Each structure stands twice: as C-alpha cells, then as structure tokens.
C-alpha cells in the first residue's frame, strides 16, 4: 500500500510541468517526392522521401529559431514521422551536430498499400545551461544520420523546451537632482528605475539586473541596482542620469533577459528636487518718494524728487519710473567713474534692461542664480506661473528666485515670500550635448 502511494506520488511529481519552462512545437518538412499516400499527419501523397533516393531525400533540414529573444533551449524532442523499410534501421537525430538521440527500429513499415506511420521519437538530454550549438535568432539544422537500413521520412515535429527571462521596467518622472550642476547650460536629469524580472511569467529572484539605454553611455549613465531581485522579482535602486534632452528607452542589459517594452523616458520638463525660496522685487517709482526736488540733473531736462534719482531709487536700482511714466535709467556711457551721486548721469529708455539685456517685464522676468537655472529658461513657479530667467542679482544664489513685480511698492501688493516647487519647461541656451 505504501509502495503504491509512493509510486502515485512519484507519477504525480513527474507529471507536473517544470516551473519556469515553456515549450514551442513546430514542424519541419524538407522531404518530398515519394509517390505513396503516407498518412503521417502531413499533407499525404508525395510528401516524403527515402534514404535510398526515393523522392528528394535530404539528411538535413534547416529551420529558423522560432523562440522569443532571451530564450534558452534546455530540451529537444523530435518526432520523426517515418517508414522503416529494412529488417532493421539505425540512425541518429542531431541538432546542429549535437546528438538528440539514436534509434534502432526493427518494425518494418514500408507498404504503399497499408502504410502505418511510425512516430520515431528522439528525446535529448536535459541541458540546464542551454542546448549545445543552438543558434538563437538564426538558422539551425536538424539532421538525420542513417547508419544502417532504409527509412522514409514524411516530416518532423520538433518541440523545444526553453526558459525565457523578461524584464518589465518602470521609470519615475525625471527630476533635476538636488545640488546637480548645469552642463553646457543644460540641466541634469535623474529618473529612478524599478525592474521586475520574470521567467515564464513567474517572478525570478536573485537576478542582478542591469540597465542600458538606446542612446548609449554617455549621455545616459546608470546607477545599477545594488541588490539582486527579491522574491517578487523586483530590483530597486537603479537610476539613470543624463543631461541630454529627448527620449531614452531603457531596457535590461543582461544578455539573457529581454525587455519587451523598454521604459520610454522623456527628458524635457522636470521639477527641481529642491524647493526654491521665492522673493519678489520691484524697481523705483517716483510716486513712492518725496522730499527736495532736483532740476536738470546730468542727462535730463526737468524736475524730479531727489531721492528717486539719487537715494535708493534709480542710482541704486539702475532704473525707475517717474511720475510721467517715463523709464529713467543710468547713462553708463556718460557717467563718471566710480558711479555715484556726484558722477552719475541719467537717460530715458524704452524699458529697464536686465542682466541678460532683455526688457524687464512684470509677469515675465525673474532673477535666478545662473549656476542653478539656465539663463533664458522657461520655468513654472508654484502659485506664480510661467516665467523666464532673464535677470540675476548679487543676492540671488542657489535655489532662490526673485520674481520681478513691476514699478513701485504698489506692485508688491499681495506678495509674500515663500518656498515652493519649480518646474523646468524649456530653453536655456544651446543645450545640445
């Protein structure tokens, strides 16, 4: 009783499919020309050949690798649909010269009138490391090497047992890392990668997953996962860094792992990982000043409030707007050196000019640290909106943006300094590395 139980248990175990393996069955048929009906599951009459030359006999039959990329063949079974036409025939079946198995058959089956078809089954050894000589992604050759006797072959059904590892890779939205530097006026991007490795739809633990990009290294450099995949097949800790804008496709670099759908990352818009300090600034408005007047100062004809021109107004800020709406700025060409209230000359202009030469405009211009935000870049500031980096300032360092608000204290109504998120949108010079 116990013996039967053990036998049943053994049979049940043998019947279980090997976890992590798949099979691919297909037919090859290089034999034709025979004149009998040969009911071997093929297309019948004329579709066989014999080793004595009946029909177009060939001892080899090529086929293209039908397996998905990354597959590894571990077992080969070949059903050779045969007539055995001698008292005894012996032959071997090979795949690319590697023996599948040898068969000797003494069952004669060679009648046109009654043609029982023999399923001569060749079963290879198990090769966990891969069937020797199998050509992945290319042409393979099945061979029948007759040693004695005479056989006719209709077709061959081949079953390849293989393992296949695939990786599903997900990537976070790119960010601009904390303390990253600009390269050629381009921001640095980083995206965190998570890979899940499966083998025939089962999670595969213990795999050292490696990433690569279709754009090469550089521009895309990787921090590879420090640990092998866990019990869920997941590898964390991978990162891709780049300063090249555009789309990168990330896939597994392991030669035995395929990535059916590489992770596509668009390196363009991205949030800075660090929050920014947002402050606002204005230029002088004569309406905010009072006190003694000055008439015909150097470069101008008329009368203005003295402190508007010489106090902390135009002389300190570089530009200001008078009561008539004119923009007055320092005439650097005609001022003496050093520029002070004794040497300064003024002029009117169409707009106040920024450090980059652009026209300073409320609702558009911001001052930035050009080591952090590329000059000319468009950014979106939380609770402020889209602005362009056009100005700099001695006090604007690091993660600090000074938002230009316009002329006079009235322009600062409703403004309060805050820390917030900034998103890089585009631009910033010739970012073409």
């Amino acid at each position: 009783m116990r013996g039967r139980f053990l036998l049943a248990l053994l049979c049940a175990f043998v019947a279980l499919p090997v976890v992590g393996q798949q099979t691919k069955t297909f037919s090859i048929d290089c034999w034709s020309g025979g004149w009998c009906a040969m009911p071997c599951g093929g297309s019948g009459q004329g579709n066989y050949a014999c080793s004595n030359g009946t029909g177009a006999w060939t001892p080899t039959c090529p086929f293209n690798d039908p397996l998905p990329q990354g597959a590894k063949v571990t077992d080969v079974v070949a059903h050779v649909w045969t007539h055995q036409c001698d008292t005894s025939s012996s032959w071997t079946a090979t795949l690319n010269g590697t023996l599948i198995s040898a068969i000797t058959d003494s069952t004669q089956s060679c009648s046109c009138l009654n043609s029982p078809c023999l399923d001569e089954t060749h079963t290879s050894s198990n090769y966990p490391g891969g069937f020797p000589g199998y050509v992945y992604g290319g042409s393979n050759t099945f061979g029948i090497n007759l040693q004695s006797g005479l056989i006719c072959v209709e077709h061959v059904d081949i079953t390849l047992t293989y393992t296949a590892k695939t990786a599903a890779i997900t990537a976070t939205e790119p960010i601009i890392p904390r303390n990253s530097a600009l390269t050629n006026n381009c921001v640095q991007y980083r995206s965190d990668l998570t890979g899940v490795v499966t083998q025939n739809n089962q999670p595969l633990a213990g795999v050292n997953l490696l990433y690569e990009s279709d754009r090469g290294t550089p521009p895309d450099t990787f921090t590879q996962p420090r640990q092998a995949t866990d019990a869920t097949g997941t590898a964390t800790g991978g990162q891709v860094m780049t300063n090249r804008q555009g789309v990168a496709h990330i896939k597994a670099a392991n030669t035995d792992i395929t990535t059916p759908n590489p992770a596509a990352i668009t390196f363009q818009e991205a949030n800075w990982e660090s929050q920014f300090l947002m402050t606002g600034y204005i230029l002088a408005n004569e309406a905010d000043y009072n006190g003694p007047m000055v008439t015909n100062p150097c470069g101008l004809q008329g009368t203005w409030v003295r402190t508007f021109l010489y106090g902390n107004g135009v002389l300190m800020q570089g530009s200001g707007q008078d009561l008539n709406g004119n923009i007055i700025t320092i005439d650097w060409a005609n001022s003496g050196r050093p520029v002070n209230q004794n040497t300064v000359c003024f002029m009117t202009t169409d707009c106040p000019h920024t450090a980059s030469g652009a026209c300073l405009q409320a609702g558009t211009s911001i001052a930035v640290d050009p080591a952090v935000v590329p000059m000319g870049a468009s950014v979106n500031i939380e609770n402020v909106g889209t602005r362009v980096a056009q100005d700099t300032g001695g006090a604007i360092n690091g993660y600090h943006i000074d938002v230009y608000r316009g002329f006079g204290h009235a322009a600062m109504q409703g403004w309060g300094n805050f820390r917030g998120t900034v998103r890089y949108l585009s631009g910033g010079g010739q970012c073409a590395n």
Partner: protein
Amino acid sequence: MKRFVSVALLSMFVVCSAVAADSHRVRLRILDNEQAQPGVKVLVVVPDGVHTSGTTIALKSDAEGFAEFTTDQKVFWVSVPSLNPQVLGQRFDIPEKAAADVRWDLRPREWKREVKR
C-alpha cells in the same frame, strides 16, 4: 466458382494492364565536366507499387558512361553518390509520349538539393 471467375478476371485485368503499360529502356549518360564517367555507381529508385521506398536498382556506368535500365513507371530517382553525395534521389519524369528508348545526359555535380520549405 464465382470467386474463381472473379479472381481469374482480376488476374487477366492486371496482366492486361501490365502488358498495356508502356515499357521504356532508359539510358543515362553520366557526365562530369562534360566528360563521360565510366565505372560510376548509379542508384536508380523506381516505384514498385508495393514499398513506399520503391525498388532500388544498382547500376554501374559502362565504358562510355552509360547506365541502362528498363521500367514501366513514369518516374524514377537517380543518385550518383561519388559525384554528388548531397543530392540523393534526383527526380526524372518520363514524358507521356516518349519513345521506347529514353536517354538523359546527367551532370550530377550540378544538381542542387531541393529544400521544401
């Protein structure tokens, strides 16, 4: 008695059919580089109506390179292993209205293996 008559009629039919079938003397001249090849082993397979593999006739070419056999079949396969071991069973079809004597010049080295795919 009926069975005897049936068998007799069937036998007559078979014999008459065999007599009626055209018989051909097939002469194969074996050439290599346009030179006749004497003493070459030539294997000819002809259908015998019984075996899927047919009947193999082993011949040897004569001094003028000829190998000769007779058949009442319309198809046969030839192998010349010494000149082309890759192509076994090159097929030949005897035309419907062929004369009693049929001759082919064979250049086995030029045969290409046909792969049915």
